[in-house]
């Protein structure tokens, strides 16, 4: 289980209606179902992973978040979770807007491209950075829109959504991000976790 799942779970109220976008093999969905008794749905692009979820008794539809969120009416869910996939979309702006249309709140996690290892990797090696959170080579990565924690905070002002809570994950420890420590968290946070609202 990914370390951020516990943190995501803590952000979600009990018995809420939740959509996990890009739910993968359903690990987070199962965790939330057991720990928060949430009414949870998933959407996943890989047929194989959808099959895995069905085998776990999870309600998942095969689909692409970029095109298939359209089918959900406004405010269908209390929370919509998007784990480490924002950077893989052709148009992250539309995806964020869609998340906040179908959900009252969204939880978005991003691998932080501003992490010091990433910066040093590019500076000294002169090659595209490969880290735990970014394990791909430049030519086979699904990640086409990398951003930093700072970029995401800036993004919230540009496309106008509220960041209700922001957290950084550093060596599996979680800490709050605020205006005064943003530069620091942007350098040491491996993952940014944001609870956002319209």
């Amino acid at each position, binding site marked *: 289980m990914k370390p951020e799942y516990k943190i995501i779970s803590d952000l979600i109220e009990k018995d809420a209606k939740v959509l996990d976008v890009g739910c993968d093999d359903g690990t987070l969905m199962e965790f939330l179902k057991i720990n928060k008794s949430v009414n949870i749905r998933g959407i996943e692009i890989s*047929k194989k992973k959808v099959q895995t979820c069905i085998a776990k008794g*999870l309600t998942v539809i*095969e689909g692409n978040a970029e095109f298939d969120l359209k*089918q959900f009416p406004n405010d269908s869910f209390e929370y919509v979770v998007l784990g480490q996939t924002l950077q893989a979309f052709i148009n992250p702006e539309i995806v964020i807007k869609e998340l906040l249309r179908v959900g009252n709140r969204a939880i978005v996690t991003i691998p932080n491209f501003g992490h010091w290892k990433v910066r040093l990797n590019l500076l000294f090696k002169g090659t595209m950075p490969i880290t735990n959170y970014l394990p791909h080579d430049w030519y086979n990565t699904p990640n086409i829109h990398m951003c930093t924690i700072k970029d995401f905070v800036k993004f919230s002002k540009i496309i106008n959504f509220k960041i209700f809570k922001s957290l950084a994950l550093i060596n599996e420890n979680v800490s709050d991000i605020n205006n005064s420590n943003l530069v620091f968290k942007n350098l040491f946070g491996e993952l940014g976790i944001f609870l956002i609202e319209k």
Partner: protein
Amino acid sequence: MSIKQNIKTLIVEKPLKLDCGQTINNFPLAYETYGSLNHEKDNAILVFHALTGDQFVTGINPVTKKDGWWSYAVGSGKSIDTDKYFVICANVIGGCMGSFGPSHENPKTKKIYGTDFPVITINDMVNAQINLLDFFGIKKLFSIVGGSMGGMQVLQFISNYPDKTKTAIPIACTSSHSAQNIAFNELGRQAITADHNWSDGNYNSKNIVPDKGLAVARMAAHITYLSKKGLQEKFGRKLQERDDLKFGFDADFQIESYLRYQGSVFVDRFDANSYLYITRAMDYFDLVKQFNGNLSDAFKHTKAKFFIISFTSDWLYPTQENKDIVIALNAVGANVGFVEIESDKGHDSFLLNVPDFLKALKNFLDKSYAEKFHEARI
């Protein structure tokens, strides 16, 4: 054929008002069951058959002496596990395996109905089958399952009886028959009615059968059930028991021979007028129109858990049409899962040995059934 002695029949006494306006009562509904109904009566699955199917889902069909049409999916230890579930399947009205259909005698005229039989719809089929629940004393089914026209019945059933099933699995189907679907059905009907033997539908009284027309109808339809890739891989341009072309119109190619065979075995087991009536019912199926253009309204009263399944190479009821059902369900917040199964076996994939499909079906049913124990604990 000694049909009658192998067929279980429920005589539906309650009047059924058909969509065409006529009312029928005291009509036969032929059915078969597999497995056993448990004490709580909560393990029943109603299976709906497709155009040319019948109530003999699995095992040896006692009439045709061939395997049941869904032997891959239904049986002991299979996806629809008859050790666990009580499976019910009825021959649709309009059919020719014992249920009220055009080959029956009209009690008023003492003649076989033929085309005097009322035109029936998917809605009528479902409304006839609901009587089976009372007959078995089942308050709520565990699931309703069907592919193709069976899937249409699943959708109609849940829209008519939203609280009569816990889960629903429409497979490779549509909520509204497309122009292409209607076109293919019309081709089949024209083939039948163009056969001189059809005699305006009165072939029974003359002891003849429009076998040529019905065979052509079956051949044309059969092509729509397969994919181009599947056909190419299985037959390609292979020749039939000959080394070279014969420069004539015999079946030179294996595909020709295959289709001719499919046509010829079909006429032995299926009634031409039933083919007309059932294809008509499919063509008239338009759940979107029934709900004034908003398919979601068909599902807004149900709490059932849905699982929609489509196949990549099905061009008769393509994934998009199945996805439209998913979209309509999501629009009303229904509990719906969906998967498109990779297969090059075309529309027929749901009837064949497609392991990913069979696995998904089994997993969904077994996991959903296990939830009842979970609920019981809470």
